C-alpha cells in the first residue's frame, strides 16, 4: 500500500467531501478544533477548507510545541550555548524562532556553534565525536518526541557520555486541551485529535473530553483523506447527539499507546509542578523535566540559567491565535510587522505554526473563483 497516494486519491476525496455536505446540518454552525499544528498545515497545504461547506469552521489549536514556548525559554537555551565550547543542537524547526536577542540562526551568524540535528541521538553522536566540546540538545515537542529524548538520555547514561546535556522543553497535550475547554472564550463542538502524540499516549487520555465535556473526538492521520474522514466521524456523532473517542488513524495509532515509549519517559522524566505556556499562562503538571537520577544530563541543573520571564511584545496576539480565539490574519501584526522573515512570535516560523500556515498558503487568495475557473 502506498499510503501517500491512496490517502490522496481525488475521487475518494470528492466523495468524502460530498458526504460531509450531506451530514452538515445547514441550520448549524460547526466549530471543530484541530489540535495539532501538523493538521493545520495539512489543511492549508491541500486546500481542504475549500472543500468544506461554509458552516463548518476549523479552529486552529495550540498543538505546536515550538509556538507555545515562551520567548524566555529560547533565551535561556541560547544563554547556555554562549559559553565557550558549547554546541547548541536542535531540530531545524527551532532555528528561526525568535528570542529577545535573535534566533538560533542569527546567533550562528554571530559565531555561536549551532547545529541542526534530525534526532536527539544525532546530538549524542555529535557529543561523542567532539569530546572537547559540550553538546546541549534543546529538546522540544509533545509526547511525540519525548520518548526519543528519553531513550537518548538512557543511552547517554549507559555509555557514560558526560559532555552531553538536554535542555528539556517537552510539554504534554492533555493539559493544553483542558485549558482550551476551560477557557471562557471558546465554544467548540468537536475535536480532530492529534495523530502523532496519540501513537505514544494512545486514545484513552482523551476519554474525559467525551465523558465530561460531551464533545466528540476523532484521532486523525495527516493525509487529506484522514482529515476529511475525521470530520465525517465527528459530524456523524454530532448528528446522533453522541460523544465518544474514535480512532481514524488506526493504521498508526494503537488504542493503548506505546508502552515501551511510555516506560522510557517514566524512567527519565517527571512532571513539572507548573510550566508557562505562551497564550495559556501557567498550567500545572503540563511539562516534563528530567529526574534527579539523570541530573548530570539536565542542562538546567548543569548550567545556571537566568530563567527570566519574557512577555511577548504588547501588540502581538500570539496567545489568542494559539487558543483559537483569533484567526492568524486577525492579529494586528500579521503580515505587517510579523512575517516569516521577521517573525515576532514563533507561530510565524514554526512548521506547526498556524500563522505560518496561513501566511504561506492562504492569505493572498482573493478573487480565487474566477482565476481557477478559467484554468480548470
Amino acid at each position, binding site marked *: 500500500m502506498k499510503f501517500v497516494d491512496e490517502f490522496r486519491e481525488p475521487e475518494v476525496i470528492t466523495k468524502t467531501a460530498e458526504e460531509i455536505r450531506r451530514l452538515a446540518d445547514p441550520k448549524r454552525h460547526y466549530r471543530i478544533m484541530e489540535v495539532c499544528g501538523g493538521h493545520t498545515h495539512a489543511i492549508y497545504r491541500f486546500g481542504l477548507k475549500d472543500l468544506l461547506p461554509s458552516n463548518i469552521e476549523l479552529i486552529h489549536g495550540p498543538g505546536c510545541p515550538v509556538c507555545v514556548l515562551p520567548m524566555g525559554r529560547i533565551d535561556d537555551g541560547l544563554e547556555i550555548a554562549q559559553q565557550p565550547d558549547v554546541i547548541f543542537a536542535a531540530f*531545524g*524547526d527551532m532555528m528561526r524562532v525568535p528570542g529577545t536577542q535573535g534566533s538560533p540562526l542569527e546567533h550562528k551568524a554571530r559565531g555561536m556553534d549551532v547545529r541542526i540535528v534530525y534526532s536527539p541521538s544525532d546530538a549524542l553522536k555529535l557529543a561523542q565525536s567532539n569530546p572537547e566540546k559540550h553538546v546541549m540538545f534543546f529538546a522540544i515537542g509533545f509526547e511525540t*518526541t519525548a520518548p526519543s529524548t528519553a531513550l537518548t538520555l538512557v543511552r547517554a547514561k549507559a555509555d557514560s557520555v558526560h559532555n552531553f546535556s538536554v535542555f528539556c522543553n517537552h510539554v504534554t497535550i492533555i493539559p493544553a486541551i483542558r485549558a482550551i475547554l476551560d477557557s471562557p472564550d471558546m465554544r467548540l463542538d468537536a475535536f480532530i485529535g492529534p495523530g502523532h502524540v496519540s501513537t505514544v499516549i494512545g486514545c484513552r487520555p482523551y476519554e474525559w473530553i467525551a465523558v465530561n465535556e460531551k464533545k466528540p473526538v476523532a484521532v486523525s492521520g495527516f493525509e487529506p483523506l484522514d482529515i476529511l474522514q475525521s470530520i465525517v466521524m465527528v459530524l456523524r456523532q454530532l448528528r446522533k447527539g453522541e460523544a465518544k473517542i474514535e480512532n481514524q488513524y488506526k493504521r498508526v495509532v494503537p488504542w493503548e499507546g506505546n508502552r515501551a515509549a511510555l516506560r522510557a519517559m517514566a524512567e527519565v522524566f517527571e512532571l513539572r509542578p507548573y510550566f508557562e505556556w505562551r497564550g495559556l499562562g501557567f498550567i500545572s503538571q503540563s511539562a516534563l523535566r528530567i529526574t534527579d537520577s539523570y541530573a548530570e544530563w539536565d542542562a538546567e541543573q548543569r548550567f545556571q540559567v537566568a530563567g527570566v520571564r519574557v512577555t511577548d511584545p504588547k501588540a502581538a496576539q500570539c496567545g489568542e491565535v494559539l487558543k483559537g480565539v483569533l484567526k492568524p490574519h486577525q492579529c494586528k501584526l500579521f503580515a505587517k510587522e510579523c512575517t516569516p522573515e521577521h517573525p515576532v512570535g514563533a507561530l510565524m516560523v514554526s512548521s506547526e505554526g498556524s500563522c505560518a500556515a496561513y501566511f504561506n498558503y492562504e492569505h493572498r487568495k482573493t478573487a480565487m473563483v474566477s482565476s481557477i475557473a478559467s484554468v480548470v
Partner: protein
Amino acid sequence: MPQVRFREPQIEMAHGAGGKASRRLVEGLFAPLLFSCSSEPLGDAAHLDFSGTRIAITTDSFVVKPLSFPGGSIGELAVNGTVNDLAVSGAKAEALVVTYVLEAGLPTPVLEAEVRAMGKAARDAGVTIAGGDTKVVEHGKADFMYITTTGIGRPLHAVRVDPRSVRSGDKVLLSGPIGDHGITILLARGELDLEADLRSDTRSVLPLVEAMTKAAGPGVRWMRDPTRGGVATSLNELARDCGLAIVLTEEQLPVRGAVRGACELLGLDPLHIANEGQFLAVVAPEYADAALNALNLCPGGEEARVIGQVCEQPAGAVLVTTLYGGSRIVDMLVGDPLPRIC
C-alpha cells in the same frame, strides 16, 4: 542619487539562498549603487549594445558541498549554470572566463578532477574557455573551492524576453522534472539516513531553448532557469515583475517519485528545490502548442509540460490548484529549506 534600501545590520545565510532575502540584498544594496538603471527588472543576463553589436553577458558563482555528487560536480555546474543563464536570457553562450578560489590544502587530484569536468562540460556545451584567474586562501576559508564563471554570448535571433510583455492567458511551460539536483545534494551530504536513486539534472538547456524559440520565438515572453529557490521563487519573481498571477496545476507538475518521496519525508516542497538543468518559459497561448511540441521532440525535452497559466488575480502571487479543486499560495523561499520534525 539612488538610495540604499537594505537595512539589515549583517549578512545572513538567507541572503544567498536565492529567495526573498537575496532579492532584498540585490535590489536594496547592489542595484541602487551599481546599476545605472536600477528600475529595470533584473534578468538572468544583461544584453548590451555596442554600436549596433549586441552581446549578452552574465556571471555566476558556485559554492557546492559536496563538490562531487551523483550526476555531476562543481566543475560542470560552473559551466552549465552560466550557459543556462545566457540561454534563458535569449542568448547562445560563446565563451567563458573562470575564477578559481582554492583552499590551501586542497588535494591536487580533487582540483584536477574538477578542471577536467569543467573542460568536458564546456566541450559538450560548445563554449570556449578563454581564460581565468586563480587565488588561494588559507585552509578553512573556502570549503575546498569556489568557482565563478562569466560568460558572453550572442542573442538568439528574434527572441526578446521581458516580464513586462507577459499577459493574462499566457501559458507556463516547464522543461522537465523538478527537484532532482537539490535533493541529490541534500542526500549526498550524508547527514540524513536517506538513500535514493537520484542524480543531479545538470546540463546545458541551450539546445532545448533553441528548439523552442525556433518554433515559437515571437510568442516567448519570458524564460528563467529555476536554480536556488526553485520554480516557486522564479515564478514569484515573475508575478511581482509583471503584476499578474501565476496559477499552476498540481497534477501537471513533473516530479520524479524519488524526489516526491524524499520531500514528503523531509517536509520539503519540490517547488522550492534547486534545479540545474531545467527552465521555465511563458509563451503566448497561440504559440504554446508549437513550443511544447518542439521541446518534446528535442532529446532531453520529452518530459516538458504546460504546468499552468497567467491570470489577472490574485496579482503578484503564485497559486497551485490542488488535486481536489482547492488551492494554496506558493511563496518565495525564506532562507534554506529546513526539514520539519514533528
